[in-house]
């Protein structure tokens, strides 16, 4: 039987390889916030309050580009709808927790932590405290994310404008989906979303950022229907 601290430690170790991508991503998020003209305190607040790299970048990019708050908030919601999936999978392992503990642990559910927790808990079905593992991954990622975005915020004030760091935004998002480029069905959905965004770019209130994913998800739904 593994002790709680050992399970927690296993969670920490499991996400360490992810730091190779989490730390640069965090630095870029902080630096881009500064580049887009936000106050350092505001940029850091997104790390603490939103705590999700992609959401933070899109949120700041939209607001700095003159989008309304409603569009920025809605697009954060669309991006984060994937968490529903993580929650649905993890809820099975977190069932025994009290309501308060469920509320607390939810804050720490992030992509990499979910991926590792799901893998480990599936392989160790009779684990007595699966939530400790989830917490180990989440807390580690949280600390690294806070530290790396703060580094990015500091670094961002030294980066000259001529470098055109804004180009790091599309590159960062390309890097996030690079693993799915080998799956044809995913590539199809990506192309639908990409071309939809070019066509809908001039739609009012920067709503292309919400409309394009919806068009692409409808395409995904139709594709799944036709497959069967």
């Amino acid at each position: 039987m593994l002790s709680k601290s050992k399970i927690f430690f296993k969670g920490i170790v499991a996400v360490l390889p992810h730091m190779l991508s989490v730390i640069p991503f965090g630095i870029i998020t902080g630096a881009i916030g500064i580049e887009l003209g936000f106050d350092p305190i505001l940029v850091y607040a997104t790390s603490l309050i939103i705590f999700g790299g992609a959401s933070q970048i899109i949120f700041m990019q939209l607001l700095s580009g003159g989008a309304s708050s409603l569009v920025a908030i809605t697009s954060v919601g669309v991006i984060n709808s994937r968490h529903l999936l993580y929650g649905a999978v993890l809820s099975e392992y977190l069932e025994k927790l009290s309501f308060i503990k469920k509320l607390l642990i939810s804050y720490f559910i992030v992509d990499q932590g979910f991926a590792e927790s799901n893998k480990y808990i599936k392989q160790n079905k009779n684990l007595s405290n699966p939530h400790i593992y989830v917490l180990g991954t989440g807390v580690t990622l949280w600390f690294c994310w806070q530290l790396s975005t703060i580094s990015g915020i500091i670094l961002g004030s030294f980066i000259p404008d001529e470098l055109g760091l804004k180009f790091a935004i599309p590159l960062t998002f390309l890097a996030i989906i690079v693993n799915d480029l080998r799956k044809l069905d995913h590539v199809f959905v990506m192309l639908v979303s990409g071309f939809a965004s070019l066509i809908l770019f001039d739609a009012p209130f920067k709503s292309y950022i919400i409309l394009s994913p919806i068009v692409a998800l409808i395409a995904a739904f139709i594709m799944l229907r036709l497959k069967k």
Partner: protein
Amino acid sequence: MTWLSIIISGIVTYFSRMAMVALIDREMLGTKVKEVLNYVPAAVFPAIIFPGVFFNDFGSFVEISDPKIYGAIVALVVGFYSRSVIATIVSGLLSYWFIIFFLLR
């Protein structure tokens, strides 16, 4: 106003993490919905990538010879073969900087 937007976005994000764990019965999320949710990253991120590469700061199409297009192609190829987040971003930025600082001067 910005503060309020950050806080609401934070609540929305937290809710997306917490809803299925603490509030909603997971059976509520049907298989079909789960299958579609799998495609959320593929549906969301290209809507940022494409305009970021193909439009300039004023919202009009860039020329086919724009450094951003070459940077994105390099990043795409490197990313496809390396599957590495850092290699994708760094190769894209370096090739972009190489073009704007050395070839266009």
